[in-house]
């Protein structure tokens, strides 16, 4: 490791200071958690004076601290190569569970993305949740959220990743349930937690199995071990499948995708992070597991099927939504589906670039949508219109985000789609999925754009002003970042560069985007009667609008199964188990009562019984003696 050849860190020299900060990099996730603890006095209402704003400022400060600390480490690592840190958690017998950090360009880059977007999101939240009286609780939860994410991206062991992914599950539950008094929020929080929990429990099964077989949970050791493992075909297939269940839930992939859409009931600033960096965290864990997962052909095929269904299905379902947040959330599922496909074919660099481009543009789009919702008090596409001229920041943000997320103009995702289509050339149908997703997304975003920003103002939008500066500044800043993102990506991927695909691929990507533009422009938009009256069209529309009725399928399958099993267990408990206990009690009481009736009170009977017993006893004793 390059760290050892350095002289003893000399704190005052810039180099020494940087190295000292590198060695303290384990503090980066701690900042977020500290932010949560610091917010507690306001969140719990112990300090009521002057409102809850100080909690928000403290959290902004720790996020900034994490960002700066991460930047210093990134600069150092860029020059010196990766650096590993390890702090012990639990050592006993032959078990070792540690906090294993790897400070690499990749991990630190992801950290900068997380903390940077978190910072922008928090400034935005200050504006968005201006009058929210439990602002401090929101920021406390965000701190928790951010700490967990920072840990996930920096980790180099499966154990630590799992530990923090679960914390992420918990904090997602609490953030989605932030407005816990609303009925939809209650179900959304429940579904978010339980769906992810199913994935997590399956993943834990895989982790426990891996830990038992391989001993170490370090990603490097695991990869080495998995190259020539002694497992049978069943185990070596089931284990990767169990391991991908966690990321599948976290990235809202089919069949565990419902929660992300429902989670849109939570506050919008949290949605910004959830749709961009949280799903990215799940994908990053999958990326780190890639060498293990892709050894099993079944797991690889599973990833492709999951990814393919999510990409196409998600894009189609998004088209039929009238709720702008939901229309956006399904595109997240779709894009992460593409990432799954790329990971299954070991196109990790392309996957990574796509994650980056997606996270930036999706965060920007969510911010823009959040502004629309705040200034119009509506998130129904059919109630919106004509924002374009009066809300420059919001409109620009939407346009930039939309272009960044699609392959139309040479912004972020254009290059990713090019690389992906080129990389998948050997599997044409997978490449087709990428291009189709592009077309569908362009169509969807354009449809939304026309609904929200074009057309004549409607009652809810007529007097809507542009958002305040607390929301506008982060939005504009992110707009700029999205616009320059190709430069950033080129810097991350210098050899052979982000444009390393032939011209015909460029043409294909641009054409798929252009097709989307054409359909999106030609599609007739109706504010009223947006549900078609032509029966086949309407059936199709409903099928997509209700997400292929997946929630109903679940309600009639898994939910019903568990609840009827629970009822059966309860019935068995009340009737059989308790019934038996009560029966024994009743039997003994009844027999006592019965015996009582047999007591006559006449002394002759007693004497007779005694004599008979004595005689019987004597006979037995004599018989044995003889």
């Amino acid at each position, binding site marked *: 490791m*390059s760290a050892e050849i350095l002289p003893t860190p000399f704190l005052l020299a810039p180099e020494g200071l940087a190295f000292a900060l590198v060695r303290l990099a384990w503090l980066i996730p701690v900042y977020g958690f500290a932010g949560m603890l610091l917010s507690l006095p306001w969140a*719990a*209402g112990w300090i009521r004076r002057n409102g809850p704003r100080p909690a928000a400022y403290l959290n902004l400060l720790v996020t900034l601290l994490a960002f700066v600390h991460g930047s210093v480490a990134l600069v150092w690592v860029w020059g010196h190569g*990766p650096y*590993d840190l390890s702090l012990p*958690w*639990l050592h*006993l*017998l*032959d*078990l070792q569970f540690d906090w294993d950090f790897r400070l*690499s*360009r990749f991990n630190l880059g992801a950290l900068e993305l997380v903390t940077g977007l978190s910072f922008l999101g928090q400034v935005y939240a200050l504006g968005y949740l201006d009058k929210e009286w439990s602002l401090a609780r929101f920021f406390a939860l965000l701190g928790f959220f951010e700490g967990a994410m920072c840990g996930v991206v920096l980790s180099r062991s499966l154990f630590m990743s799992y530990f923090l992914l*679960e*914390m992420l599950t918990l904090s997602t539950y*609490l953030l989605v*349930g932030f407005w*816990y*008094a609303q*009925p939809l929020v*209650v179900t959304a*929080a*429940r579904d978010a*937690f*339980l769906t992810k*929990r199913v994935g997590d*429990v399956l993943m*834990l099964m895989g982790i*426990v*199995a891996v*830990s*038992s*077989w391989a*001993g*170490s949970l370090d990603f*490097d*050791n695991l990869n080495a*071990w998995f190259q020539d493992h002694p497992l049978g075909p069943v185990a070596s297939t089931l284990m990767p499948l169990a391991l991908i269940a966690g990321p599948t839930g976290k990235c809202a992939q089919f069949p565990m995708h419902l929660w992300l859409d429902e989670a849109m009931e939570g506050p919008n600033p949290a949605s910004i992070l959830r749709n961009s960096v949280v799903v990215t965290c799940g994908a990053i864990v999958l990326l780190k597991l890639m*060498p293990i997962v892709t050894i099993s052909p079944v797991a690889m095929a599973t990833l492709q099927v999951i990814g393919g269904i999510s990409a196409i299905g998600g894009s189609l379902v998004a088209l039929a939504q009238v709720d702008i947040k939901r229309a956006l959330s399904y595109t997240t599922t779709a894009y992460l589906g593409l990432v799954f496909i790329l990971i299954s074919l070991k*196109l*990790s*660099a*392309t996957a990574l670039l796509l994650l980056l481009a997606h996270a930036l543009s999706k965060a920007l789009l969510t911010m823009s949508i959040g502004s629309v919702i705040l200034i119009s008090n509506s998130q129904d596409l059919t109630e919106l219109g004509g924002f374009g001229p009066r809300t420059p920041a919001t409109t620009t943000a939407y346009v930039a985000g939309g272009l960044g997320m699609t392959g139309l103009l040479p912004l972020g995702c254009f290059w990713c789609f090019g*690389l992906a289509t080129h*990389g998948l050339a050997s599997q044409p149908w997978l490449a087709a999925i990428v291009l189709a997703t592009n077309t569908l997304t362009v169509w969807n975003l354009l449809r939304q754009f026309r609904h929200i920003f074009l057309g004549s103002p409607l009652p809810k939008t007529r007097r809507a002003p542009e958002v305040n500066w607390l929301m506008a500044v982060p939005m504009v800043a992110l707009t700029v970042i999205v616009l320059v993102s190709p430069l950033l990506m080129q810097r991350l*991927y210098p*050899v052979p560069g982000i444009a*390393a695909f032939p011209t015909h691929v460029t043409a294909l990507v641009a054409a798929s985007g252009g097709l989307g533009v054409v359909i999106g422009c030609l599609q007739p938009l109706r504010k009223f009667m947006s549900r078609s009256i032509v029966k086949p069209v309407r059936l199709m529309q409903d099928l997509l609008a209700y997400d292929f009725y997946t929630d109903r399928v679940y309600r009639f399958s898994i939910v019903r199964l568990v*609840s009827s*099993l*629970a009822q*059966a*267990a*309860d019935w068995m*408990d009340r009737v059989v*188990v*308790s019934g*038996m*206990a009560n029966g024994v*009690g009743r039997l003994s009481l009844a027999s006592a009562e019965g015996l009582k009736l047999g007591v006559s009170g006449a002394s002759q009977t007693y004497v007779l019984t005694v004599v008979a017993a004595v005689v019987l006893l004597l006979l037995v004793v004599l018989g044995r003696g003889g």
Partner: protein
Amino acid sequence: MTASAPSILSLVLLAPLAGALGLALLPPAGASPVGLRRFSLAVLTVQLLLMVALLFRFDPTTGQMQFLEQAAWLGTLGLDYRLGVDGLSLPLLLINGILSLVAVAISPLSTPRPRSYFALLLLISGAVNGAFLARNLLLFFLFYELELIPLWLLIAIWGGARRAYAATKFLIFTAVSGVLILVGFLGLALATGSLDFSINSDLSQQLGLGTQVLLMGALLVGFGIKIPLFPFHSWLPDAHTEASTPISVLLAGVLLKLGTYGLLRFCLSLFPQAWALVAPGLAGWAAVSVLFGSLAAIAQTDMKRMVAYSSVGHMGYVLLAAAAATPISLLGSLLQMLAHGLISGLMFLLVGVIYQATGTRDLTVLRGLLNPQRGLPLTGGLMILAAMASAGIPGMAGFVAELMVFRGSLLTFPLATLLSMAGSGLTAVYFLLLVNRAFFGRLATEPDGAPPALLPLAGLTKQAPAAVLAAAVVLMGLWPQGLANLAVASTSTLARPTSGPSTTMASANQAATSDFLLEDMAHGG
């Protein structure tokens, strides 16, 4: 006594018993409940301090019994006064110390007949200490039975509406449990012809395997009733529903652990061969218990019953780990006992707060309690923490314990372990239902449409016991090394010598210098 000064274990044992005696005899007839509670708190604080002193003098490097004390008592019966403590009993002792203190601290001052109430609580605490410290089978049995009587009285006198039914059911079940355990112990003496009632696995080696299994079976069912395992659990939900909050805390947190402790200390270490023989069956039994407890919990609408059924499920993990009997799984089983003690203690405590404030525990009635003005926000926050801890979210006690249990048992009993893990997923279902129903949503309005009644806000001092337990749950989750160090030597000596395949490190811990993704990038994706 071997030592001239009374030794520390005797002090730990005698302090609460003397306190109970003092409470029963000393105070004047009209002593105020405040004074009585203070006195009990003082006694239990002394007990806890003694335990902490014991903790500091304890040597965690050896798995043997320490601080041995021995005095002849009824030698002709084989009943000697032998005490000792090891890494298995010390943490359980501490849990008893903490939860007894909590139970007294949360006992309302309006309790009728406070003098006998507090005396009985102290008696339970002392008896449990005795059971954990005893190194003689009969002495253990004595304390095991001694703890029943005050508990029965506490349910039968201070319980809820159906207390007579619940208390009688409790008494009958646990009396049967006691009889079976006595049969096991006496049968061992009878079969081996030795009156040496010490915990000695050599004794059973003289017996045939059939006899061993028979004797161990008696112990197993006896402790199985106490733990409780399906289908002997029927007394527990009733006892919990009728018991008052402090008694529920003690019952779930401490008294059930006597059963699991007995499982490890007596079934496993007295009859290692028989245990190994029936272990696969036990693992299956554990999985059934876990799934049944979890599924039954989902169907409950009374919060106390729900938590009670969750105990049935979570105690199943202990049986699973005990069946596997690897060093890791046995440590896991102890950690699970501790985690369950803390978490279920906390949950019953919080349910008690809700019941006191709203007058109901019915999940079909309660909602919106997280409301900051009219609800119970702090209780809600702690309840979410307890629910998450119980569901095994990392960072809290439940995760560490479950991880050790599953990690230790998977290779020995793969199917049972995987089923139990599914049960841990179900835990999330029912506790999420509890939190969502009782705490989320809007507060119910009064029948006439008036705004909901203002719930009495419990002050910080009143919430202190819950906060302390919650802090302990988090501490154990974040820093399990301390507890593990304390116990690992002892639990490892309990482990079967021929346990499952030992794990090996896959490859040398070579520090990887390459960043595989970067490498991958350099090769063009």
